[in-house]
């Protein structure tokens, strides 16, 4: 039978979760317990329900960075105080929590760890209040790319759909050439992220490998428990390749169920969100040779810094970081940098300090392993995007190929121009 | 000693009182008619004994055992067999299934009403055993309702208006059935407004009026007593 060795891991996670519960409890009375000159950061996130994993891995990463900063003496003795609250994945709740941060808790900065829908709600709140906001989770391109949604005080430290799409398409084009792939299908979750991902990937693929044939699309609902109707469609159409932006538990269920149909035997499967530890760990029998982007893996970028990041996180929380963790970590790194540079919490100055800034990072692939916050749209670039194939055991992914950022930015510009956004 | 002893019960439908200090004494192995006009409280008396309606005070004893405070099903298990006015057969069950539903595992199986004995007593039902009860005629349903209750081996059978709405030939069938049951030694209390029917099947009668028992005696006596009849039964 299949081996199950997750007991210890689960227990650790559970304890960590309870710890967060307790921590956020004390965070509820900040003004009573804490000194006044603290630098206050409000973190609206999802801690309950089925994507609680998101909130936990983000807050873990944030705490790791903040604790280090505080231990090292903070900003001339001023420490960062975190206020983390659960929005239960509801946009109106996220907006309320944010208004609360700004109005009642007088936070200096908001580190937004909400998924896309709620991120737009947060964006509207901070647009009105003018509070500095660091988005760390939403990958929906329009959040910073669409000038009508962009705000001067909002920065994005998360991946961006269009970047991933171009990187993915470039990689896919190589495989197409190698294996003679013609017929494509796409299986994407039926919500904005899934639709964007579908759009941009095939748009970019057309640029690198024109002449493919898109023979069908499947749109399972998010959190759908049963993918049979989608899978029978694939089994019937027999595509050469499938592109999918399913993620988390949905992707796990999909792969489990599609394996029953032997889908992965004759079809190349490109899953942009597969190579995250949580997901790969949860798949019963991870088929060999699936293609995935590296969400977060310790093996990529193959650098000392990255392995060190993975180790310190794992030592603390008993579990690997997730894609959301590194995004939040970089956001905090940037924030700390800016705080030190400006010496205070003036939002205008902080924003100036963030704009166009390049810093070294474990996820950086820019010159000297750096990432950059692009001046134009205040969004992160030069982070690591790699594609490889899966193997059933750790490190789970091999033959990783890095995406080229020049290619990405060139095509991104074309795409934005098409959209009328630049 | 009487089998069923009802003493001073006051019973209610929600807020409206239907029985006023009602008392009854039923002795074993007899067929007794419970007479009274429409709305006099005959059905209510039965429902109070079975526990279907709320009894606020008084006592109901079967074989000396107090039933007050017991649930409907435990009263039935103690030996109260109730055949409601509207028969209430289970329409989606077959005749045989209906009878089986009436079975219960009480230890005192005095009359030993197994399926065989029921078919002997109700030959008509045996022929219809696989028919759905909802498809039976009124008379057949009445038979079935009685048979179903008998299957539970009751100490006493409360028959509520068994002749109501039935054709004369069927009424005769019911009369014959009750005679048969009498011979076996079943104790039966029959609520009726049809005096004529009672004369044929019962030896004794109790008259109730306005929620109280007002007269008891033998049917023959009542037949002679025009005054009582006029007062409580006739128009």
């Amino acid at each position, binding site marked *: 039978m299949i081996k199950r060795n997750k007991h210890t891991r689960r227990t650790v996670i559970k304890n960590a979760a309870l710890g967060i519960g307790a921590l956020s409890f004390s965070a509820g009375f900040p003004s009573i317990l804490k000194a006044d000159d603290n630098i206050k950061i409000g973190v609206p996130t999802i801690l309950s329900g089925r994507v609680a994993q998101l909130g936990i891995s983000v807050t873990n990463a944030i705490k790791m960075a903040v604790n280090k900063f505080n231990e090292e003496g903070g900003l001339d003795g001023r420490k960062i105080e975190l206020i983390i609250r659960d929005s239960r994945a509801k946009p109106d709740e996220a907006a309320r929590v944010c208004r609360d941060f700004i109005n009642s808790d007088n936070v200096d900065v908001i580190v937004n760890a909400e998924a896309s829908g709620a991120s737009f709600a947060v964006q509207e709140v901070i647009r009105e209040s003018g509070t500095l906001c660091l988005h760390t989770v939403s990958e929906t391109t329009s959040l910073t790319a669409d000038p009508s949604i962009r705000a001067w005080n909002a920065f994005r430290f998360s991946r961006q759909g269009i970047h991933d799409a171009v990187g993915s398409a470039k990689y896919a084009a190589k495989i197409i050439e190698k294996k003679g792939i013609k017929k494509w299908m796409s299986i994407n979750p039926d919500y904005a992220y899934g639709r964007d991902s579908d759009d941009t990937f095939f748009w970019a693929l057309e640029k690198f490998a024109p002449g493919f044939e898109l023979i069908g699309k499947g749109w399972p609902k998010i959190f759908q428990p049963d993918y049979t109707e989608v899978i029978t469609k694939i089994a019937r159409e027999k595509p050469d390749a499938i592109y999918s932006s399913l993620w988390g538990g949905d992707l796990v269920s999909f792969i489990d169920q599609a394996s029953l149909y032997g889908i992965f035997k004759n079809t190349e499967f490109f899953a942009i969100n597969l190579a995250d530890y949580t997901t790969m760990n949860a798949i019963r029998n991870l088929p060999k040779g699936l293609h995935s982007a590296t969400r977060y893996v310790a093996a990529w970028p193959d650098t000392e810094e990255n392995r060190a990041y993975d180790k310190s996180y794992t030592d603390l929380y008993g579990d690997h970081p997730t894609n959301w963790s590194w995004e939040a970590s970089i956001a905090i790194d940037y924030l700390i940098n800016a705080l030190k540079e400006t010496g205070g919490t003036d939002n205008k100055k902080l924003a100036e300090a963030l704009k166009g800034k390049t810093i070294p990072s474990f996820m950086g692939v820019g010159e000297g392993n750096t990432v950059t916050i692009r001046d134009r749209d205040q969004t992160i670039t030069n982070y690591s995007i790699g594609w490889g194939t899966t193997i059933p055991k750790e490190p789970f992914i091999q033959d990783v190929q890095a995406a080229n950022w020049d290619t990405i930015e060139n095509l991104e510009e074309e795409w934005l121009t098409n959209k009328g956004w630049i | 000693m009487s089998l069923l002893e009802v003493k001073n019960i006051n019973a209610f439908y929600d807020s409206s009182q239907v029985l006023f200090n009602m008392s009854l004494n039923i002795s074993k192995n007899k067929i007794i008619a419970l007479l009274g*006009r429409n709305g006099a409280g005959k059905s209510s008396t039965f429902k109070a004994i079975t526990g279907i309606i709320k009894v606020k005070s008084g006592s109901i004893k079967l074989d000396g055992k107090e039933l007050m405070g017991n649930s409907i099903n435990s009263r039935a298990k103690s030996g109260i067999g109730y055949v409601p006015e509207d028969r209430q057969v289970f329409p989606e069950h077959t005749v045989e299934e209906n009878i089986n539903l009436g079975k219960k595992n009480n230890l005192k199986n005095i009359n030993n009403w197994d399926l065989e004995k029921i078919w002997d007593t109700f030959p008509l039902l045996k022929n219809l055993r696989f028919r759905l009860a909802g498809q039976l005629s009124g008379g057949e349903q009445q038979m079935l309702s009685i048979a179903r209750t008998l299957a539970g081996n009751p100490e006493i059978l409360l028959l509520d208006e068994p002749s109501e709405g039935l054709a004369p030939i069927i009424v005769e069938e019911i009369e014959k059935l009750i005679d048969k049951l009498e011979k076996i030694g079943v104790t039966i209390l029959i609520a009726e407004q049809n005096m*004529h029917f009672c004369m044929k099947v019962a030896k004794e009668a109790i008259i109730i009026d306005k929620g109280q028992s007002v007269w008891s005696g033998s049917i023959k006596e009542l037949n002679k007593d025009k005054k009582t009849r006029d007062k409580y039964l006739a128009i």
Partner: protein
Amino acid sequence: MLKINNLEKSFGGIIATGNVTLELQKQTINAVIGPNGAGKTTLFNLITGKLKPDTGKVFIENKEITNLDETETTQMGIARAFQITNIFPNLTVYESIKLAILSKHNGLNNMWTRFKDHNVNYEADKIMKLAGLTKSKNIISSELSHGDQKLLDIALALCLKPKLLLLDEPTAGMGPEERWKMIDRIKELWKKTKITILFIEHDMDIVFGIAQKIYVLQQGAILAEGRPKDIKKDQKVIKAYLGGGKK
């Protein structure tokens, strides 16, 4: 006053009302009696339009009302009280009566005045007095005694200022004393208003006590009709009640 010609109604082949013909005189009290299942309540439902007859006609004051529905027959002057008390359990006596009066005047679509301020107080007081409910004015209906609930039911019907009042077992579920109080109340009410009344009743003392004319219903048909003393002697009726004749 009320005229019924050859009214028939059956449910799934079973005849509930078979060829009923009757005519009520103005300002009289009339009783319908008969064994259970004789079709008395069905007859009421046919008169008020709650049920539609298969054949036959109903007239009130020579106007045909056969196919009118319940709301329409009330406008024609027919009101009824029910066998099972049919009141508004969470409203007070006064509120219930005012509501009934207002609905008669189509006043319930009014959103812009206060219900409390509605000037139907004189009429409401009169009806409460008539029904003997003045004392209970502000009591929640469900907390009334059973007899008072029945009276309220009748009072609600009276609010419609009916020409014909149908009472379905006005004394059902009452103790002996309460019954006679109720009957006195009905008598008094009739004396004051002279409404034509048709009532269903099982208590023969009451029927013979107040009815001026009695209709005996059996198996959906009229077995006999006439003055109380005639009915008492009627052989068919005696047979029906004392057995034998029951089919």
